[in-house]
């Protein structure tokens, strides 16, 4: 598609309406089948034996007692699984992954890593058998912080990679002349920032079921965002052709990015099924969802920027360090995306960036909503707030002056076509009467002098695709059936966002049929067209365009067939709301069913078309405004109101889009204030791998969210200008809260989560 094609203006019949999502009826009745609900005859249960040491060589591993335990059917260790070096993040041919994993290795690189697996006739027996496996470790010195991992002479965690504990060579971006920029600056701000280890903590623990049949074909149910990637890497590592691996996933209990790796237990499950020739199920406990799942990369950021007295930003020098944990997973992708993202958001011609990613002996960090950008924009936005303070300017006004706008180049290197940040920011300022808010009394309740209130604003932008790191391909197949109904086949996963509904809306709109006439088939790699996976906020943008392209094609074919039946030329007729009518004589029409069905001498037909789309990237934008209350005696911060203003181009399903924004804000509030997956810095052990001590905001903690979606800046690369929304909302809320805390109590925080202890400590230091 030519990105310069103007966006078609039309009156929408289905797009832009919150139609009933096609997946939700099953969810409210309990019929929806998630991977863990699948039960096969003769199914065994697999469990993983996990290391109780952070860095070690396995000297010996004795499974004889476990194998002899009644009910145990198979035990796997590094001694009897194929030794294939493979990628953790299974994006083939992309810059975002690293080949550094074995199914089971002789070496342990983090506390909790799997060292053996058992299949037994019950979960309890498998669990009990784990205790009977005796592992002797030779402990190695371990590192838990990226700073320590970067020191010369630090213990080496991997034998592969560019050297030291680097996951990839440093990512460097240079634009303009930074030295000249600083020379021009009236003042310079410099600061260090850091981020904790938030966890996606999706509700459905990872789970898979493997069944290996007599023809040596592996059928694999798994809760994954990228079933074709799982198929590809399972086939590669297990030495099977793609025709012998079938991956199935119907409903998913969330993923938020993290369920796009191929996990160790997935290989183990397949191998246990192969060994026993019985179906095997492996389901994580909640504890395992933390230790063997994927979290956001902790980061350290150094940021120095030069400003003119009129607020113009003239130089940016930034160094970012991401902690990959024990394996590469998405470390390279996160480092590249997070680093290059810092070329943008606030415009600056002279930029020098360096991003590094280091291995540490901690659980693996992977893809998570806001991929690398949560970290870098936290720093960029907070420092812009500080510049406003220094200038005596309103922060929203300074941000408005500096946000990316028409003509600016995107982090991906191509011009952004729809710029919405300016309008989001301005809209929020206007509807909130921002200036009046900022002039409010900070302690409005005289009976509660310890409660101080503050308002803050944070900005973000995020791409809807992984371009240019991954040059993606979106596919869709659309079939018009002989009764006039339409079947859409898509490989895109249904994480719970309503993506399949949006795709069906797009097909119905383009084709000119009712939404109810569309049936969607997904989640079976043997049936649906290849898909890269549901990530990078791209499903509506990427697969939506592919679906629209396929619908355009079948529409033409339907019209051709109808024209034949109506004995007119195809360009003399049109298709709308399931009716094909002669434009000049609207009374003369036939239904799609009549066009497709049999008539005298003409048998029924089926029309099929594929759409394939290889996009660049669009950008979505948001400004989040928030009110916080800070208890200056306990340090507890409550987020009271959030007004998120988003530009996501054309909105396909308003309620689903709002839902993405509100859920992203919930996660972002958590990351900023309460959520941090903590690893003991002495042992590498997880300290809060559970839902009581890993503190996500719950119903009583959530503020009122007044979502505003603007269709201000559509991008022609998406269907009717639609752009992504999945990741955006988690990015801007963090700096908005940190800035609001500053507004309330006059203290700047450069890290997350900002704990009550941090607040009290800072207030004391300020008072002293």
């Amino acid at each position, binding site marked *: 598609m030519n990105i310069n094609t103007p966006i078609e203006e039309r009156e929408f019949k289905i797009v832009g309406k919150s139609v009933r999502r096609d997946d939700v009826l*099953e969810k*409210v009745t*309990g019929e929806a089948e998630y991977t863990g609900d699948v039960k096969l005859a003769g199914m065994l249960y697999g469990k993983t034996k996990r290391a109780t040491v952070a860095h070690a060589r396995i000297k010996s591993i004795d499974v004889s007692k476990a194998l002899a335990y009644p009910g145990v059917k198979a035990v796997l260790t590094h001694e009897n699984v194929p030794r294939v070096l493979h990628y953790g993040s299974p994006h083939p041919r992309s810059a975002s992954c690293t080949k550094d994993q074995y199914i089971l290795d002789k070496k342990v690189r983090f506390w909790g890593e799997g060292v053996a697996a058992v299949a037994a006739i019950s979960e309890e027996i498998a669990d009990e058998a784990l205790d009977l496996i005796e592992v002797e470790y030779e402990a190695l010195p371990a590192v838990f912080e990226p700073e320590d991992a970067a020191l010369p002479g630090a213990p080496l965690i991997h034998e592969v990679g560019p050297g030291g504990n680097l996951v990839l060579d440093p990512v460097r971006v240079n634009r303009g002349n930074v030295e000249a920029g600083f020379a021009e600056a009236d003042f310079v701000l410099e600061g260090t920032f850091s981020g904790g280890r938030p966890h996606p903590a999706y*509700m459905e623990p990872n789970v898979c079921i493997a069944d290996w049949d007599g023809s040596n074909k592996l059928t694999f149910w798994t809760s994954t965002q990228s079933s074709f990637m799982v198929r590809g890497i399972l086939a590669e590592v297990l030495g099977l052709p793609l025709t012998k691996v079938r991956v199935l996933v119907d409903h998913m209990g969330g993923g938020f990015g993290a369920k796009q790796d191929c996990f160790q237990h997935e290989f183990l499950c397949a191998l246990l099924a192969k060994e026993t020739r019985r179906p095997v199920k492996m389901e994580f*406990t909640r504890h395992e969802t933390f230790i063997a799942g994927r979290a956001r990369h902790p980061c350290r950021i150094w940021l120095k920027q030069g400003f003119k007295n009129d607020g113009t930003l003239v130089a940016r020098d930034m160094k970012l360090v991401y902690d990959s944990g024990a394996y590469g997973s998405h470390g390279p992708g996160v480092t590249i995306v997070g680093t290059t993202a810092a070329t943008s958001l606030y415009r600056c011609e002279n930029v020098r960036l360096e991003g590094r990613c280091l291995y540490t002996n901690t659980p693996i960090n992977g893809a998570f909503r806001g991929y690398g950008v949560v970290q870098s924009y936290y720093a960029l936005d907070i420092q812009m707030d500080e510049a406003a303070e220094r200038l005596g300017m309103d922060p929203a006004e300074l941000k408005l002056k500096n946000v990316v706008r028409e003509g600016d180049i995107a982090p991906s290197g191509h011009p952004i076509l729809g710029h919405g940040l300016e309008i989001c920011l301005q809209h929020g300022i206007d509807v909130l009467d921002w200036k009046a808010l900022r002039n409010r009394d900070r302690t409005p309740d005289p009976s509660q002098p310890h409660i101080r209130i503050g308002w803050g604003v944070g900005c973000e932008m995020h791409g809807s695709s992984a371009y240019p790191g991954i040059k993606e391909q979106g596919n869709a197949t659309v079939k018009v059936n002989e009764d006039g109904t339409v079947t859409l086949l898509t490989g895109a996963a249904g994480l719970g966002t*309503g993506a399949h509904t949006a795709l069906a809306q797009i097909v119905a709109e383009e084709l000119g049929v009712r939404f109810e006439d569309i049936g969607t088939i997904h989640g079976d790699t043997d049936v649906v067209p290849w898909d890269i996976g549901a990530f990078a906020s791209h499903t509506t943008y990427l697969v939506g365009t592919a679906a629209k392209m396929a619908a355009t094609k079948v529409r033409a074919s339907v019209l051709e067939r109808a024209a034949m039946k109506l004995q007119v030329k195809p360009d003399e007729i049109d298709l709308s709301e399931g009716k094909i009518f002669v434009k000049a004589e609207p009374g003369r029409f036939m239904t799609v069913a009549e066009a497709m069905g049999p008539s005298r001498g003409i048998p029924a037909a089926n029309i099929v078309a594929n759409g394939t789309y290889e996009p660049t990237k669009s950008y979505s934008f948001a400004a989040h405004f928030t009110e916080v209350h800070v208890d200056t005696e306990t340090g507890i911060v409550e987020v009271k109101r959030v007004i998120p203003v988003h530009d996501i181009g054309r909105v396909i399903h308003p*309620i689903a889009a709002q839902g993405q924004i509100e859920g992203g804000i919930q996660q972002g509030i958590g990351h900023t204030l309460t959520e941090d997956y903590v690893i003991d810095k002495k042992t590498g052990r997880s300290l809060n791998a559970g839902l*009581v001590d890993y503190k996500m905001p719950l119903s009583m903690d959530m503020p009122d969210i007044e979502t505003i979606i603007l269709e201000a800046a559509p991008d022609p690369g998406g269907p009717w200008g639609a752009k992504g929304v999945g990741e955006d909302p988690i990015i801007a809320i963090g700096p908005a809260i940190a800035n609001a805390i500053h507004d309330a109590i006059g203290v700047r925080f450069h890290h997350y989560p900002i704990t009550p202890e941090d607040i009290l400590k800072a207030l004391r230091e300020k008072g002293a």
Partner: protein
Amino acid sequence: MKRIVELTINGEARDMAVETCCSLLDALRDDVGLTGTKKGCDVGDCGACTVLVDGEPVNACLMLAVEAQGRSIETVEGLQPSVDTLHPLQDAFMRHGASQCGFCTPGILMMAKKLLADNPRPTDEDIRFGLSGNICRCTGYTKIFDAIKSAAREMEAARS
């Protein structure tokens, strides 16, 4: 060792043979085949397995199946008044976008059913308090609150 437990599930009397160490959750899912009730943590922290036992919401993961002897259990599968009708809560959850990934939905629906049974006109605070043991990671709860308020209004209107 297995025991026979006689109980009522969604209004239907039945018995199940369960291991004495088996949770009600595992019995419902694995032995009875009612997989609508979800296992999100298995330790009472997430509320995804909320079912009503004699009308009271409990975490099915924290109750042994043998304790269900003589009790009446309601799960999400029993929420529909008839095969082609939805409970007002189910309908409201669909209309308001209160279910995204849906994994928390069965537990939240059962909790909400109990909430509205006790308190037909709940305030925002009542709803927040009532759902405080049910984790939803997708929605930010906003649309769940909307749906419950909407269902409450409809149920109220249907009664009057």
